[in-house]
C-alpha cells in the first residue's frame, strides 16, 4: 500500500506531457513521412491515419526491462489484441498508453499528437477510456453511479450549484443518468442498476467496468484483460459485447488477453509481446502459424511435452 501510494504521488508531481516532439504533428504528416529520419519500422499503411501510434517505446523498472523498443500502430475502428506470456509487458504497455507510466524512451501518438507521457488527467477528454486488470470499480457507489462516473470529466457545475440544485447541475445529472442507463441496457446490466458495485459477482463487475469506460463513447478503448478469471460462457459473452461496442460506437479497441482462443476470434490484428519485445504483429491466422509465437507462448518443447501441457490446460 505504502509503496504504491508513494509511487503514485511521484507520478502526480512529474511534469505531464512536455511533448517531446511537441510540434503537434497533424495526422496527415504523421502517417506518411517519418520526417525525422527515424528508423521506425511502422509499415506504411494505406488508408486512414493511425489513431494510436507508439514509436520506440522503452520502459524499465530498475534494471528490469519491461518494454524494449515497441512500435505499434492501430487504425481507427480496429480491434487489436496484445497477447504474450506472463510478464511479457502487456499491462505495462496499456499503462504507458493511458499515461499511468511514463516511458523512458519513445513517444505515444494519439490522433496524431505526440506525447512523452500521455496526460492521465486529460485522458477522457482525449477520447481514451480504459479498464483495469484488477477490478477498479468504486465499491461504495451503485452500478448506475459507477457508470455515470465515466462522464465526470464533462461536469462543469461546481459543488455549490450542486448542493443548492441550481445552475446546470440538474441538467448534467439527468443527462449523465440517461446515458448511463442507455449503456446499462446495451450491456444487459439494467437488472443490477441500483446495486452497490462491490456486491456484484466478479463477471458482472468486469462488465460494469466496461460500461463505465464505454459511457463516454471513447474513440480508443483500452481493455486490460477484460476476460481474466471468467468462465468460458462469460468470456464469449464479453467478446460479443466488445464487438458490439466497436460496431455501435465506432470505437477502436486495444485489448490484452490471455485466452488465445477468444482473441483469435475477436481481433482484427494481434500483436505478440515476449520479454518486452514485439515478436509479431499480424492477422490472427498469421500469428497462429508463426513459429516464433508458438515458441514464446508454449515454450520451445518437444512434441510430447507440448502435448501433455496442452492436455493439462484443457483439464483445468
Amino acid at each position, binding site marked *: *500500500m*505504502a509503496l504504491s*501510494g508513494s509511487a503514485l504521488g511521484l507520478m502526480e*508531481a512529474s511534469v505531464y506531457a512536455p511533448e517531446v516532439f511537441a510540434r503537434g504533428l497533424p495526422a496527415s504528416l504523421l502517417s506518411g513521412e517519418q520526417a525525422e529520419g527515424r528508423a521506425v519500422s511502422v509499415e506504411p499503411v494505406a488508408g486512414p491515419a493511425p489513431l494510436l501510434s507508439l514509436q520506440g517505446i522503452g520502459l524499465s523498472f530498475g534494471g528490469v526491462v519491461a518494454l524494449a523498443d515497441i512500435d505499434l500502430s492501430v487504425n481507427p475502428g480496429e480491434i487489436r489484441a496484445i497477447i504474450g506470456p506472463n510478464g511479457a509487458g502487456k499491462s505495462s504497455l496499456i499503462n504507458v498508453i493511458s499515461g499511468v507510466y511514463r516511458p523512458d524512451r519513445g513517444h505515444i501518438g494519439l490522433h496524431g499528437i505526440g506525447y512523452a507521457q500521455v496526460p*492521465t488527467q486529460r485522458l477522457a*477528454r482525449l477520447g481514451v477510456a480504459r479498464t483495469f486488470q484488477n477490478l477498479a*470499480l468504486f465499491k*461504495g*457507489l451503485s452500478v448506475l453511479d459507477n457508470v455515470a462516473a465515466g462522464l465526470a470529466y464533462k461536469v462543469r457545475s461546481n*459543488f455549490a450549484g450542486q448542493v443548492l440544485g441550481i445552475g446546470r447541475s440538474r441538467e448534467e445529472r439527468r443527462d449523465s443518468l440517461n446515458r448511463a442507463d442507455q449503456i446499462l441496457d446495451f450491456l444487459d446490466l439494467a437488472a443490477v442498476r441500483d446495486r452497490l458495485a462491490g456486491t456484484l459477482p466478479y463477471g458482472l463487475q468486469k462488465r460494469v467496468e466496461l460500461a463505465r469506460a464505454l459511457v463516454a463513447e471513447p474513440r480508443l478503448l483500452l481493455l486490460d484483460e477484460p476476460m481474466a478469471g471468467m468462465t468460458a460462457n462469460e468470456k464469449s459473452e464479453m467478446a460479443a459485447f466488445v464487438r458490439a461496442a466497436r460496431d455501435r460506437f465506432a470505437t477502436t479497441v486495444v485489448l490484452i488477453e490471455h485466452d488465445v482462443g477468444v482473441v483469435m476470434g475477436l481481433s482484427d490484428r494481434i500483436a505478440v509481446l515476449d520479454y518486452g519485445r514485439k515478436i509479431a504483429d499480424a492477422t490472427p491466422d498469421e500469428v497462429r502459424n508463426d513459429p516464433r509465437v508458438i515458441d514464446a507462448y508454449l515454450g520451445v518443447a518437444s512434441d510430447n511435452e507440448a502435448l501433455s501441457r496442452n492436455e493439462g490446460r484443457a483439464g483445468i
Partner: protein
Amino acid sequence: MAAIPAEFSSAPVLPKWVVPVLLLAFAYGVVPLIGSSYLFEAILLPFLALSLAGVGLNILTGYAGQVSLGSAAFMAAGAFAAYNFNLRVEGLPLIGSIFLAGIVAAAIGIVFGLPSLRLRGFYLAVSTLAAQFFVQWALTKFSWFSNDSASGVIDAPRLSISGFALDGAVGRYFFALTIVAVLTFLAHRLVSSQTGRNLIAVRDNETAARIIGIPVLKTKLLAFAISSFIIGVAGVIWAFAYLRTVEPAGFNLDRSFQILFIIIIGGLASIRGAFFGAALIVVFPLALSRLGGFLLGDVFDSGVLDMSQRIVLGALIILFLILEPDGLVALWDRIRRRLLLAWQTT
C-alpha cells in the same frame, strides 16, 4: 430465498424525508418543553457540537477517504476566528462571524490538506497532526487571538440571531440546533451530489478516478475545505453555546481522536452515523458514571471513571472495527429491517 425480495420490497415504507422532519419537529417542539437544564447543558449541547464535527470529519474521512487527526485544530480555528471577528469587526452580525470563521477554518484546512496530494493513510494522518499542534501552539503563543487575556481563556459573546437574543440553556440549544440542522442538510445534499460521488470515487480507487477524468487533486482539497468549514462551525458551537468560554486547551489531540471515534463507531460515510456516534460518546460516560456509582459506591471516583471510560471505549472501538465496520448505523438498519420483517409476518 423467497423471503429476500419480500424484505426488500417492504423496506421503503416511508419517504426518506419523513424521519428527519419528525425528529426536527420533536427537537424544536417537544424537547424544550420536557427537557431539564441538565439535559441541555450536559447532553444535548455537546451532542450537537460533536455531531456536527463528526459530519464534517465524515465528509473528509468517510467519503473522501482522507484520514485526519487535526479535527480539534479546525474546531479551535473556528472558535477563535468567530470570537475575533465578533470582537473586532463592528456591526458584523453573529451569524456573519460564524460564517467567516468557517471560511478561515476552511482555508487552514486547505493548507494542511496539501500533503494529501502526496501522502496517504497513516502518513497523511501523521501530517494532519501538524495542524493539531501548530494551531494550538499559535493560539497559545500569540495572545492577540485571545484579546490579550491573561489566562488565555475568554468568555464567549452573547448569542443572538438577527437581533433575537438566545439566552439560557434553551436559547443556546435552539441556536446550536438550527445551525446543525442547516449544515447537516447541506452536507446531505453535498454527499448525494456529483461532488459527493467524486469524493467516493477518489476514496475507492484514485487511479481509476483520475483516468476517467475526475479532478482528483481539486476533489481532495475541496473535501478538506468543506470538512474544515463544518468542523470550524462545530468549534464555534462548542465554545459559544456549550462551554461559553474559548480556550486552546479544550481543543487538544484528545478531542481530535474523540471525533474520529465518533465516525468510526457511528459509521463511516454516513451522515446519520455522526449523530449515532456522538450520542454514544456523550451519553456513554454519563451512563458509566451512574452505573459505576450505583454498583461500586464511593470507590468509583472520577479517576476510576476516567480510566474505565477509556478502557471500555477502546474495547468498543476494537469490537466495532472487527464485528461491524460500518458502525452503529449498519447495526441500526439491520435491527430495523428485522423488526419490520417480524412485524409483517405476524
